[in-house]
């Protein structure tokens, strides 16, 4: 019962979406739209599950007095504060005539987005620039023919996609044609496209076979089975 019902649900949902691709009419077309509505709602609950789980884990850390309980406290405070601000802006906006969105420019929630969420998330990702440079210096070596190919492609793409190699040629009047830019473009349009298409087809075949296994109930790991 614990496995059979989920497997049945999986198969029905999968078959509806697969068949409606060919027969977008009643009952498949309509079922597909209804299922689409449900998926959007389930996904929202899943996000809430994640947020509530984060609260649960953080409270547990504080309760057990782990060494990082200070940071767990910060997480709880920031999460709850953002929720309070969001709910306040959201519901007060709904009461107004005409209604105002919780994220409209000028709201407290928008302020949190612009001045807290944006700098933190942006800086977190921006740090990768330092690590990619450090890795290039320490590990990017032309040890064999394959690695040399990789390095040469990276070299010309990095120098050709920005006017790094072309600028001296243009400034010194050696050439009017941005050859390095054209070469980088050529790498992207042909060798890269060839390699990328092979990867794309390979992934597509893998996804198709996995999907079929899931729909037919052969793959059961998502319902807790082997």
């Amino acid at each position, binding site marked *: 019962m614990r496995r059979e019902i989920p497997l049945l649900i999986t198969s029905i949902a999968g078959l509806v979406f697969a068949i409606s691709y060919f027969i977008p009419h009643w009952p498949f077309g309509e079922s597909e739209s209804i299922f689409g509505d449900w998926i959007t709602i389930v996904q929202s609950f*899943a996000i809430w599950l994640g947020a509530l*789980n984060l609260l649960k884990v953080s409270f547990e850390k504080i309760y057990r007095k782990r060494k990082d309980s200070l940071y767990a406290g910060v997480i709880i405070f920031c999460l709850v504060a953002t929720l309070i601000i969001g709910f306040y802006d959201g519901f007060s906006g709904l009461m107004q005539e005409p209604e105002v969105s919780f994220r409209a420019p000028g709201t407290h929630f928008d302020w949190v987005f612009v001045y807290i969420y944006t700098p933190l998330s942006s800086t977190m990702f921006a740090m990768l620039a330092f690590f990619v440079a450090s890795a290039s210096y320490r590990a990017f070596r032309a040890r064999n023919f394959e690695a040399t190919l990789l390095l040469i492609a990276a070299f010309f793409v990095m120098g050709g996609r920005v006017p790094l190699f072309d600028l001296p040629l243009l400034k010194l009047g050696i050439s009017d044609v941005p050859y390095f830019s054209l070469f980088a473009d050529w790498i992207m349009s042909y060798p890269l496209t060839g*390699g990328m298409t092979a*990867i794309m087809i390979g992934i597509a075949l893998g996804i198709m076979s996995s999907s079929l296994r899931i729909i037919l109930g052969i793959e059961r790991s998502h319902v807790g089975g082997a």
Partner: protein
Amino acid sequence: MSELIGVWLAALLTLGIFSFLYKDNPIYKICESIFVGVSAGYWAIVFFFDNIIKKFWYGVFPTDNSEPNYLLWFGAFLGFLMLLRLSSKIGWIARWPLAFIVGATAGLYMMIYFVSNAMLQISSTMRNVVAVNPETSAIVWGETIGSVIIAVGVLSGLVYFFFSKEHKGVFGQTAKVGIWFLMITFGAHFGYTVMSRMSLLIGRVDFLFTDWLHLLK
């Protein structure tokens, strides 16, 4: 005033995260925790108002002349089952909505990947390898050579990914050519990744110089 406080706060948070570059430290960890908490809260609020209120609530209780869509209640029921995952006793029921999502995704992906990423790519690789100028009927050599390179890249790359036969003889040599194409692909990918990462850093430095320090206009 709120903008001034906001810019200073954003700048301090930016520097707090960057402090990790020197070494792991409590200021970084606090900034990281703020990020985790605010992100979770942000996502929860956006999904609540944009989906649960805007789609579900107004769908069931429309404020305009639309017909109520009572079928949405079943979506909310599935969503509620998802929340039961928090309970250790009846958490297994959360597999039902999960199974629904997995099944629907599998069904959709099977078709869209088959059409867009397999069939169309294969047919495009094999068709029109020889490029002809429609006006003069002359062969366009640059484009034709490019098409041949793509066809060789795709075929040899796929041969490399075929592990059911030992990579020996002609098959092995073809697979080797496939590796070369993949290496060029990864190299170009690396070049683009560097470009991307540097752009993100430029964005942050520009914020510090322009909005915070007013060094730039």
